[in-house]
């Protein structure tokens, strides 16, 4: 049971890490004028 929980938690962490990395990669590739249009905070706001 404990092993299963640990694997589940690890999966959550890896998913969050992957999400963060993708967000940042998208930001880094933008022109300066557009860089914050896909910023982490703006992306977060857009989901609400």
């Amino acid at each position: 049971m404990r092993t299963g929980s640990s694997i589940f938690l690890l999966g959550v962490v890896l998913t969050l890490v992957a999400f963060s990395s993708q967000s940042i990669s998208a930001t880094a590739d933008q022109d300066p004028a557009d860089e914050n249009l896909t910023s982490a905070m703006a992306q977060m706001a857009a989901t609400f």
Partner: protein
Amino acid sequence: MSYLATHDGGNVYYENYGSGQSAIILVHGWGMSVRTWDHVLPDLVTSGYRVVLLDHRGCGQTDKDFADMSINAIAGDVVALARQLDLTRVVLNGWSLGGAVVVSAAAALKQACVGLVLTGGASPVYTQKPDFPHGGTNDDMQATLAALAQDRVNFLNGLAKIICAKPVSPAIENWFEQIFLQSSPMAAQTLGELAVLDQRELLAGLTMPILSFVGDQDGFVAPDICRWVGRNNPNAQVVEFEGVGHAPFIEAQQDYLAALNNFLKQHL
């Protein structure tokens, strides 16, 4: 517990480590508190510096019900605290929105401010202008304020997870979230002011040494905003961290502390 009594009847919480008339004052970012400097504070105290920290209006243990939550009002609290503690040589270090606060405070302190540090500083401008192509748009800011108003708890939960670009533990994310939740919803007024902020003339004209820390993956304050001072003020140097997001003092702690200590050794 130490509090500064403000001119408009409120109380600003501060912490004061060490003694003497020289000090570094640490000013946190929007919605945060003095606790966000916990990765920096022990090292500075151990190095022998007097360190002063304060909570913004509406944040941490400072009063929440100020009528004036503006960046200039918070800067006024920084100046008043420096004078109350009889500090004659001060280095100001502002993180994120705290960067705009310390730029304003540095101008007011004049010669008493012997150095300025911007850590992912949201200055001189935060949203795009016709002649400033960096940062988000006013629409981005309005969307952020709307999200905060609509679902503050979940928005701040999500925000806490993406402050850092480098992987950090869930405990760090939870720590950020808890600090966010300690702030008042009314502190959104301060954040909204970033949409109209323009400190270009002020920042370019400051004459003290300036150090700007940049995380090249910062998703909160566009890196080119943090780089601006290096191109527009001859007294400024920029230290950039590769692969780092909005919290270089956590994501690149040792390099951050080394550069900060070097700056303090030279100027404080």
